[in-house]
C-alpha cells in the first residue's frame, strides 16, 4: 500500500474545514481555563481554610484523572441534572476545567515568584488587598508565566482530538468519517498528524519568540 | 636534560578575549612551581590546558618529550586524537578550586572510582591504596561519609587524595584554597606542604597564598594579562621583584593578606 497523493489532496479541504472546530474548541477552552484557573489560585491563596482545602484537592483531582473520562462525565452526566450540553459545549467545558488545574499551578508559580518585599511595600503604602493584587502583584506575576501558559495552550490544542469520542466533528473525527467513507485511513490520518505537527511546531516557535522578547524586555 | 614540561608560545583566546598571549615555560621534573598573578591573568587557563580541559589556540606543549596536544606522525605533527589525549592525561592530576567531588559517592568511592575504572585495579587493591591516601590527608575516619557531610577543607583533602590515587607524575592545584573559609585554609595547606616535601612529583600551583608559595616553591612565575612578566626563586620575586607590575601586584595582595 502506498500513500495516494491524489486522494490526500481530495480530502484536504474537508479536513481544513474541520480544523475550524478544533481551533474554536481550543480558543474557548483556554479562555475558560484561564479564568477558572485564576479562581482556583485565588481560592487557595485568599480563601478561608476549607475553601482553600477544597480548591487544592479539586486541582489535584482534576490534574490526575484522564481528560477523556472527564469529557464522558460531563457529556453523559449533565443530562441527568436536566442540562443537555451539545457535544461541542461539553468538550469545551471539559477542556477548560482540565487545563484550569494546570494553569492554576502556573499562576501560583508566578505569584510565588513575586518577591516578598513587594507585598510588604504594598502594605507599607496602605494599599487594600484588591489594589495590591490588581496593581502590584498580578502585573508582575503574569508576564513571566505567559510562555508556560502558551505551552498549555498548545497542549490543549493537541488534546482536542479526544472530543471525537463524543462525536464532535473536529479534525480527527472528520478524518475517521472520511476514512470510513472511502475505506482508506492512511491519508486522512496522516494529514491530521501533519496538520497538528505544523500548527503546534509553529505555535511553539511563536511561544519561544515571545519568551525571548519578554526576556529581552525584562533585562532592560 | 630536557625539561619535563615544555610550553612553547602558548596562546588561548575565548572569542575576542586573549587570555594567554604567548607563554614559554619549562618545568624540570620534581619542581614545585607557583604561578601568581591578578585574577583574569590567565594562570588557571595554563593548568586547564595542561589537564586537557581546554584546547590551546596555538603553541606547543610537551610532557616528558611527548607532545600533549599533538601527535607525531612520520616526522610531522598533527592534532591529537582522543586516545592520545587519554594516554597523556594519565601523567597529570588536578585539584580544583570548587573540589568537584562526586556528591553521590562516599569518600572512599570518590577515591577508588578512577583506580578501579581507569587503572583497572581490583576492589581490594584500590581500597587499600585509597585508605592509605585518606590517612595521609587525615580523613581515614570519613570513608563512608558523603561529600555533603564534609567541611570545605575536608572536601578539598578528599579531592587531593582522589587525584593522587592515579599516581600522577604532575599535579596541578588550581586555587585550591580560594573557596574555603579562612579557618579551613590551613589544613589544606598542611597537606600540600607535606606533599611538596615528601614526593618527587612535579607540582604546579596557581595560588593567592603568597606566604605559602614563598615557603614551598622552588620557583615563582608572575603572570599578568596573558604574559609571563617575571620569574625566579621565591626570595627574589617576593623580596626584590624587578618589574614594576610585580611590585604593584605584590604590594596590593600582601597589603590585603597582612
Amino acid at each position, binding site marked *: *500500500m502506498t500513500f495516494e497523493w491524489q486522494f490526500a489532496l481530495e480530502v484536504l479541504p474537508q479536513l481544513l474545514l474541520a480544523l475550524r472546530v478544533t481551533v474554536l474548541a481550543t480558543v474557548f477552552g483556554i479562555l475558560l481555563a484561564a479564568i477558572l484557573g485564576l479562581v482556583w489560585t485565588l481560592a487557595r491563596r485568599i480563601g478561608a481554610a476549607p475553601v482553600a482545602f477544597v480548591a487544592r484537592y479539586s486541582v489535584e*483531582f482534576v*490534574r*490526575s*484523572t*484522564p*481528560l*477523556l*473520562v*472527564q469529557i*464522558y*462525565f460531563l457529556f*453523559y*452526566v449533565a443530562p*441527568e441534572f436536566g442540562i443537555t450540553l451539545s457535544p461541542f459545549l461539553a468538550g469545551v467545558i471539559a477542556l477548560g476545567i482540565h487545563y484550569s488545574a494546570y494553569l492554576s499551578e502556573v499562576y501560583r508559580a508566578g505569584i510565588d515568584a513575586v518577591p516578598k518585599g513587594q507585598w510588604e511595600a504594598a502594605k507599607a503604602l496602605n494599599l487594600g488587598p484588591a489594589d495590591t493584587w490588581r496593581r502590584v502583584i498580578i502585573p508582575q506575576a503574569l508576564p513571566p508565566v505567559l510562555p508556560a501558559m502558551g505551552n498549555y495552550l498548545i497542549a490543549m490544542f*493537541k*488534546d482536542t*482530538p*479526544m472530543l*471525537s*469520542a463524543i462525536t464532535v466533528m473536529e479534525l*480527527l473525527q472528520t478524518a*475517521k468519517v472520511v*476514512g470510513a467513507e472511502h475505506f482508506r*485511513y*492512511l491519508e486522512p*490520518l*496522516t494529514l*491530521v*498528524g501533519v496538520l*497538528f*505537527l505544523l500548527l*503546534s*511546531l509553529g505555535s*511553539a516557535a511563536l511561544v519561544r519568540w515571545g519568551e525571548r522578547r519578554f526576556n529581552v524586555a525584562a533585562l532592560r | 636534560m630536557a625539561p619535563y614540561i615544555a610550553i612553547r608560545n602558548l596562546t588561548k583566546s575565548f572569542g575576542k578575549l586573549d587570555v594567554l598571549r604567548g607563554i614559554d615555560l619549562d618545568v624540570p621534573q620534581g619542581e614545585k612551581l607557583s604561578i601568581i598573578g591578578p585574577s583574569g591573568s590567565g594562570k588557571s587557563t595554563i593548568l586547564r590546558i595542561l*589537564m586537557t*580541559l581546554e584546547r590551546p589556540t596555538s603553541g606547543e606543549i610537551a610532557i616528558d618529550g611527548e607532545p600533549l596536544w599533538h601527535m607525531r606522525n612520520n616526522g610531522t605533527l598533527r592534532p591529537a586524537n*582522543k586516545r592520545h589525549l*587519554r594516554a597523556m*592525561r*594519565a601523567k*597529570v*592530576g*588536578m585539584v*580544583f578550586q*570548587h573540589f*568537584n567531588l*562526586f*556528591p*553521590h559517592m562516599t569518600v572512599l568511592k570518590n577515591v577508588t*572510582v*578512577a583506580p578501579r*575504572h*581507569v587503572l583497572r585495579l581490583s576492589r581490594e587493591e584500590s581500597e587499600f591504596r585509597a585508605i592509605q591516601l585518606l590517612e595521609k590527608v587525615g580523613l581515614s575516619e570519613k570513608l563512608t561519609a*558523603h561529600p*555533603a*557531610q564534609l567541611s570545605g577543607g575536608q572536601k578539598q583533602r578528599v*579531592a587531593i587524595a582522589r*587525584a593522587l590515587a*592515579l599516581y600522577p607524575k604532575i599535579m596541578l592545584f588550581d586555587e585550591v584554597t580560594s573557596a574555603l573559609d579562612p579557618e579551613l585554609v590551613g589544613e589544606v595547606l598542611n597537606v600540600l606542604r607535606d606533599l611538596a616535601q615528601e614526593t618527587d612529583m612535579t607540582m604546579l600551583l596557581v595560588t593567592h597564598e603568597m606566604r605559602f608559595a614563598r615557603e614551598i616553591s622552588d620557583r615563582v612565575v608572575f603572570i599578568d594579562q596573558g604574559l609571563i612578566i617575571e620569574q625566579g626563586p621565591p626570595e627574589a620575586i617576593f623580596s626584590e621583584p624587578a618589574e614594576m607590575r610585580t611590585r604593584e601586584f605584590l604590594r596590593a595582595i600582601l597589603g590585603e593578606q597582612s
Partner: protein
Amino acid sequence: MSLFEFIPSLLSGLGVTLTLTGGGALVAVVLAWLAGLARLSHFGPLRLAAATYVETFRGTSALVQLYWFFYALPLFGIELSATATGIIVLGLNIGAYGAEVVRGAVLSIDRGQSEAAAALNLSNLKRLWIVIAPQALLRMLPPAGNLLIELLKSTALVSLITLNDLTFRGMLLRAETLRTVEVFGLLLIIYFCVAQVLTLGLHAAERRLSKAWHLEGAR
C-alpha cells in the same frame, strides 16, 4: 445493583490500565534516555534523528498517534495487537517528553563534575554513567513523576482502539446499568487513587536517594 458491585467489573479493567502504564513507562524510560542523550551528542546526524523523533511525537496528539499506528500502520504490513500498539505509542509519546527531561537534567549538572571526571581520565562513557547519570537521575525524578501521571491518564485513550481498560469497562458498565454518575464518578476516583500511589512512590524514591547522598535541603 449497589455501588460495590460495580467495583469488580471496573477493577478487571484496571489490570489492562496498569499493564499499559507499566509497559509504556518502560518503553518511555529507554527512549527518553536514548533520545535525550542523543540530543547532546557531538554527532550531527544522531542529534537530528533524536530531534525529529522528539518534535514529531511532542508536536502531534497522542490520540492521533494511536489511531495512526492502529489503522494506518497495518496498511504497510505491520500488524500489532491493540495492547502492543498502546504500549508502543504511549511509550513513544511520553518518551519524547522524557527526552527533554533527561536532556535538561544532564545539562543541569555542574560542569565541574565532568571536568573532574575527565581529570581522573575516565572515558566518555564512564563519565556519563558513573558520574553524570546518577546525579541527573535525582533531578529527573520530580518531572518524571509528572510524566508518569500523564502516561496513566493517556492510557484511557486506548479504550478508543477497542482495548478493555478501566475506561472501556466504565463505558460498558454505564451502558448496562445506566447509572452514569456512579460509574463515571467511581472511575475517576480509581484513576485518582492510582495516581496518588504512583506520586507517593516517586516521592519516596526521591527522598531515599537524596537521603542516601545526605543532600537534605537539596530537593
